[in-house]
């Protein structure tokens, strides 16, 4: 119950902040831009497509890249939204309210994660409306769309958990944002580390990078390993955040 209460307050605070509205607007604008560019490409390719066996359709050519673009925007947007989760409460002294209230550290972390995920779910649903607008002039592959959307949601959930953890490390929101951005950028491009190395090493780094799992879902491959990867990442960062809050009471 306290989890929901904390989540509701978090969501409300997010919507009372102009930053969140700016994030919504910019995400939407960039996704629309990506969609239009890819739609232009599709219209150029369209006459040649019927002749090709196994040719990609509208969803694969237009929607999947647009969702990938949304993922890229999230790389920047997620740190900005999550940066204040704990650091701002530490700075303004409101964390004392939570710490002296009859709620556990787990409640606080889960409540904050749920709150920020509610916000991101709204962001994702609004992003989803952009590809759905194609329905006015064509048909979509709903399976591919659903798997791509799931990929985006899982990606955002991992980003949010990472951002929440980084926010527990400092009392300065800007520092939390920059650190989160650095961490996400590293996770996004972790597969670089494997290039030129032996096959085993390359596949290890490629597996650890978030992009490989995101791309698989964007291509319509729903593998439980990809789902478990994201869930493990969320769980790891949330546990770290809980531990960190506990340690904050002990440290100085």
């Amino acid at each position, binding site marked *: 119950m306290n989890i929901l209460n904390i989540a509701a307050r978090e969501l*409300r605070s997010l919507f009372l902040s102009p930053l969140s509205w700016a994030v919504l607007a910019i995400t939407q604008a960039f996704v629309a831009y990506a969609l239009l560019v890819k739609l232009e490409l599709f219209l150029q390719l369209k006459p040649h497509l019927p002749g090709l066996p196994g040719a990609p359709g509208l969803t694969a050519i237009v929607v999947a890249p647009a969702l990938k673009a949304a993922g890229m925007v999230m790389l920047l947007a997620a740190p900005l939204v999550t940066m204040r989760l704990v650091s701002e409460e530490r700075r303004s002294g409101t964390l004392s*309210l939570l*710490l*002296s209230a*009859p709620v*556990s550290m787990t409640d606080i972390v889960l409540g904050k994660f749920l709150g920020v995920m509610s916000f991101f779910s709204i962001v994702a649903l609004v992003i989803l409306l952009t590809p759905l607008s194609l329905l006015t002039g064509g048909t979509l592959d709903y399976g591919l769309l659903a798997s791509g959307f799931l990929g985006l949601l899982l990606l955002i959930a991992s980003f949010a958990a990472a951002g929440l953890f980084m926010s527990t490390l400092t009392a300065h929101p800007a520092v939390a944002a920059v650190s989160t951005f650095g961490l996400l950028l590293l996770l996004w491009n972790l597969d670089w580390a494997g290039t030129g190395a032996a096959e085993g090493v390359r596949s290890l780094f490629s597996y650890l990078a978030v992009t490989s799992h995101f791309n698989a879902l964007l291509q319509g491959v729903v593998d439980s390993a990809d789902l478990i990867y994201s869930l493990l990442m969320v769980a790891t960062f949330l546990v770290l955040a809980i531990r960190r809050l506990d340690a904050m009471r002990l440290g*100085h």
Partner: protein
Amino acid sequence: MGEQSLIEVANLHRRYGDVHAVQGLDFRVRRGEVLGFLGPNGAGKTTTMQMICGVLAPSQGTVRIGGVDLLEDPIAAKRQLGYLPELPPLYREFTVDEYLRYCAHLHGLRKHAATKAMQETKARCGLQDNGRRLIGNLSKGYQQRVGIAQAILHRPAVVVLDEPTVGLDPIQIREIRELMSELGNDHGVILSTHILPEVQAVCDRVQILHEGRLVLDEDLVQLSKSQRPRSTRVKFRRPPSRTALTGLAGVGRVESLDADTLRLHHADDDSLAERIVTASVAGDWGLYELISESRSLEEIFVELTFGEGRGRDEQNPGTGT
């Protein structure tokens, strides 16, 4: 363990790295008691309060709230706790009502109970007309009231207030003091302050902290007894001989301060002033001033906490500029 003890602190220590901020505190607060924490800045008042409220973990020692160990069962212990930190924990983008409702929910009050508690508390703190205003737009005094409202909203058995009257104007201070005395009737209250008259106005017991230790723990009733006059300053136009003065019943030593001012040291005695006046009239000494000198709380405070510090300052008058 008396069941009336709402707060029991035993052997409480807190270290920040090498700094030993709180060094072995032991005390209890009963129901219906207002305990005043006094001490210079850095004495460990805020640290102690944070440990009582579970915001900070003690390095050593135990805290029990209403008989529940804060470390073993923090949730049950915190249910009986209301805390106003030094910096009121306010969400500036919320209205007073939204904020108080959130606090009520956090403490487990549901819809109807929450609304009722909010109305009562707002009335108690003088916030009836501010429910729909944004906290960020309120003046400092009103923000402080919202902070106090948050601490007493769920009617906790224990209320801990860290410098509750800071930044308020004199009228608001009077209102908040009345509120605190009222709280003391059915709660256990700890408040910290720098303002000495505040302790005398609202507290039943005073504790002076200095460098992490308790240097004084006394009922105010006891304290005011020990503050009874022990000396009297008198001025005569025609000073009598010392033997005439020491001859008065009760007068111990006579100290002369300047040409016509004398200080008479004596035991606790209500009727001495009367005898001095009578003797003066009879002997035509021309008494024109008589002041009973008592030790104020401020003097006790300075003596207990400031003595060494002032000594150091006087030795190095040039430093600190």
